[in-house]
């Protein structure tokens, strides 16, 4: 690792690795400022209604209990963009699980006990929580998440569909999915006069700082958000969540530092989740498989508090050439917890539907599913007509087929077995857009020959620290071990959040720019002055706009081999293999981890993650990690991720595309397509649990 030129693209081990394996890495609730006390939140037990009375006498009778915050006495908050953060501000309950009180006590034990002893009375109203295809409240939003137009029409789909030689028409259903990062949302808040420090488990400290400044009507400069290590987020920590706000409110009230970790079983209600989707996909094709029309119509739901529209029809605007296309989103607002971002919002559920439909079309046309995709490869981005900055889906499919051993393949279902197990293989494509956001960074040179990168980036497990050191080392022409990185504090140069797979591009760009400026400064100075040298740089709208004339997306192809036990309905993934094209891979070690991690989460979604919105009570029934089953070690046997070299000059100075979300896109379809190949059973509703496959 001493060849500076090799810094970028080298499999550098994570800089914080030693801290993580020794337990020294400190997460939000691992900080205990002197005098710290503990908070425990109390969720609403009705799905819709109003608090009519609060009896906190028993709770307050415990000598260790310091305060019970409710809408009657909580510090007032200014209005923030996210209505779910108007915590303890009104007696109204918009969904079951919404926070209605917070107990603060000297000990965690006392806080938990007192929270259970609060008596809260409600006037409850009839709730509306069941998502039906014909719900009278369904409407057409203007925009879907991430600012995409909700509806797009090209050509005349209806006529194309009616006149098509081959048609598929199916509805795919995915229930709510939950992020469940291993670290529950936690914060430790300390006030010093009018200055607030929050150790927060978040994906972006500047975003949290901004929100807290708004809510508490303070200048940014008086708020410090520290998130040195974050135990995963997968979108659920993308913006400020209740823990940071509640901890700050409590700390202000009791004038002590407050530690608050949201209990696992409460997360489903208060940190967002992937909204359920009902997706109708219709494909019209010629008998040779060439698409004539694509319609992807999505129904999803949001809470009454906010409109969040899972943009599941958006990938259909990117993937395949067809003269006629309709992509639409409909949404209904119900008395349910507010959905939000979960790893690859839009692409993940949308590509399950689209890639399942493509498999159905391949079957209908008697075509190999890879061949079908090759025949529908577009010249230009179908919806926008823009050229792709780079697109290597077909290479991924071919390379994946080779590595996986796809051919020769008998497409007929139910032909392969091993003992009483049916075996099958499936393929699906992956795609994820290139996002990038303005950020700033500083790079310092010290007289001792060391360098430091300073940027308020957040490492939620991606390896952000490590890749930023590599970028700086590469530009400066020094070994990576001479570059230190300081991230995760809002008093560092401001940066965008770790979301939308945009971190490396957004942060690496100003780091690259600052390092370049520093290199030039150093060349002028000859040697580093005693006080060191620093260069600061930022990216702005003009940088980000430069490549707007191109459609920029990462692509991939995923292959699954499954076995299905038809006696028990159990599906196990024997092999999962992905080949991706995501620009230049800056650190193969951490990149592989990201891609594998996405694929494993996709497998988990396909086979075991199951959440029910309880019609009677209006909450997610499977709220803990026993009932909401995420993949365990035993589920994950042989998962491999590869990539192809992709040069793309229209991205950023590093030439990289985001990889944090790409891996989860397409996995579920590859697996259920393989289940179909094994059994002849088409799984259109996830997950493919034993009850779905048994006896069919």
């Amino acid at each position, binding site marked *: 690792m001493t060849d500076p030129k090799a810094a970028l693209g080298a499999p550098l*081990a*994570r800089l*914080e*690795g*030693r*801290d*993580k*394996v*020794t*337990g*020294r*890495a*400190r*997460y939000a*609730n*691992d900080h*205990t400022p002197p005098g710290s006390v503990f908070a425990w939140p109390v969720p609403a037990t009705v799905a819709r209604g109003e608090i009519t009375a609060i009896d906190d006498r028993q709770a307050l009778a415990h000598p260790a209990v310091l305060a019970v915050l409710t809408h009657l006495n909580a510090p007032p908050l200014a209005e923030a963009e996210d209505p779910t953060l108007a915590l303890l501000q009104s007696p109204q309950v918009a969904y079951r699980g919404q926070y209605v009180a917070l107990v603060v006590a000297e*000990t*965690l*034990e006392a806080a938990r*006990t007192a929270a259970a002893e609060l008596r809260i009375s409600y006037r409850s109203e009839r709730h509306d929580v069941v998502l039906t295809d014909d719900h009278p409240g369904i409407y057409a939003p203007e925009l879907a998440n991430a600012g995409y137009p909700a509806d797009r029409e090209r050509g005349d789909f209806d006529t194309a569909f009616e006149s098509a030689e081959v048609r598929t028409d199916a509805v795919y259903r995915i229930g709510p999915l939950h992020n*469940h*990062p*291993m*670290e*529950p949302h936690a914060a430790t808040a300390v006030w010093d006069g009018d200055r607030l420090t929050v150790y927060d488990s978040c994906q972006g400290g500047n975003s949290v700082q901004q929100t807290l400044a708004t809510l508490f009507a303070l200048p940014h400069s008086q708020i410090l958000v520290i998130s040195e*290590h*974050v*135990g*995963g987020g*997968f979108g659920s920590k993308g913006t400020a969540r209740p823990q940071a706000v509640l901890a700050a409110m409590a700390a202000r009230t009791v004038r002590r530092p407050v530690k608050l*970790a949201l*209990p*696992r*079983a409460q997360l489903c209600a208060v940190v967002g989740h992937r909204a359920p989707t009902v997706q109708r996909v219709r494909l019209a094709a010629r008998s040779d498989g060439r698409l004539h029309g694509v319609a992807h119509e999505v129904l999803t739901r949001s809470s009454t508090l906010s409109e969040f529209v899972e943009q599941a029809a958006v990938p259909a605007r990117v993937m395949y050439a067809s003269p006629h296309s309709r992509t639409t989103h409909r949404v209904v607002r119900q008395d349910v917890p507010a959905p939000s971002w979960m790893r690859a919002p839009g692409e993940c559920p949308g590509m399950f539907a689209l890639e399942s439909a493509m498999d159905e079309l391949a079957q209908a046309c008697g075509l190999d599913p890879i061949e079908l995709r090759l025949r529908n490869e577009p010249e230009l981005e179908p919806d926008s007509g823009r050229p792709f900055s780079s697109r290597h889906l077909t290479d991924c499919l071919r390379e994946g087929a080779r590595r996986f051993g796809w051919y020769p393949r008998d497409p007929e279902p139910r032909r392969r077995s091993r003992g009483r197990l049916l075996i099958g293989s499936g393929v699906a494509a992956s795609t994820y857009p290139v996002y990038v956001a303005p950020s700033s960074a500083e790079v310092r040179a010290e007289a001792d020959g060391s360098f430091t990168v300073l940027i308020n980036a957040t490492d*939620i*497990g*991606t*390896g952000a620290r490590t890749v930023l050191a590599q970028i700086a080392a590469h530009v400066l022409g020094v070994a990576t071990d001479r570059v230190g990185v300081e991230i995760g504090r809002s008093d560092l140069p401001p940066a965008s959040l770790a979301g939308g797979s945009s971190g490396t591009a957004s942060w690496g760009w100003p780091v690259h720019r600052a390092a370049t400026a520093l290199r030039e400064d150093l060349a002028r100075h000859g040697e580093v002055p005693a006080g060191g040298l620093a260069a600061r740089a930022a990216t702005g709208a003009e940088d980000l706009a430069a490549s707007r004339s191109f459609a920029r997306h990462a692509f991939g192809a995923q292959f699954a081999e499954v076995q299905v036990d038809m006696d028990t309905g159990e599906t196990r993934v024997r092999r999962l293999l992905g080949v991706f094209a995501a620009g230049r891979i800056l650190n193969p*070690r*951490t990149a592989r*981890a*990201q891609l*594998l*991690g*996405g*694929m*494993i*989460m996709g497998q988990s979604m396909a086979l075991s993650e199951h959440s029910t919105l309880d019609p009677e009570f209006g909450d997610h029934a499977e709220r*803990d*990690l*026993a009932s909401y089953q*995420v*993949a*365990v*070690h*035993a589920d*994950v*046997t042989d*998962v491999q991720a590869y990539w192809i070299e992709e040069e793309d000059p229209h991205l950023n100075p590093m030439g990289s595309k985001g990889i944090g979300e790409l891996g989860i896109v397409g996995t579920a379809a590859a697996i259920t397509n393989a289940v179909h190949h094994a059994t002849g059973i088409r799984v259109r509703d996830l997950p493919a649990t034993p009850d779905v496959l048994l006896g069919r």
Partner: protein
Amino acid sequence: MEYTFSTEVALRVNGEDHALLLDNRSTLLDVLRERLGLTGAKKGCDHGQCGACTVLVDGRRMNSCLLLAVAQHGRSVTTVEGLAEGDTLHPVQQAFLDHDAYQCGFCTPGQICSAVGALAEARAGRPSAVTDPAEDPPVPLDGPEIRERMSGNLCRCGAYPGIVRAVMEAAS
């Protein structure tokens, strides 16, 4: 019979003796984290469903979130902070580094303690659900064995392949 809600408890933690007056409600996890400042063990679920709080109690891996501290009186506890010998990492810790067996790192202390416990169990010839009944001790730790034995430790980042490689290396 005198009833009190707190109890004097003697605990040996990472080789150090502690005499603590503890709230009977305190779990071992909360005592480690909030009384002894050992924040390596993590609270992922607080109900024994994720494994992030795994520590070794008298050498055996357990979920510290489900152990009442008062009931551990006289026991010896090893946390992730107690595995290394000075600057020399425990072989499992080193293997985790070498195989990139973590991403966010939150489940890592539990995975590592669990692996240390699992390796000892296999050495002692203890079977798992996938062990061939005819197998004589010690049980060889191949992929299926490690995956089954480590299944009490969730990793939402999906670092499983690296963890399995790390445990396999530490086992050999």
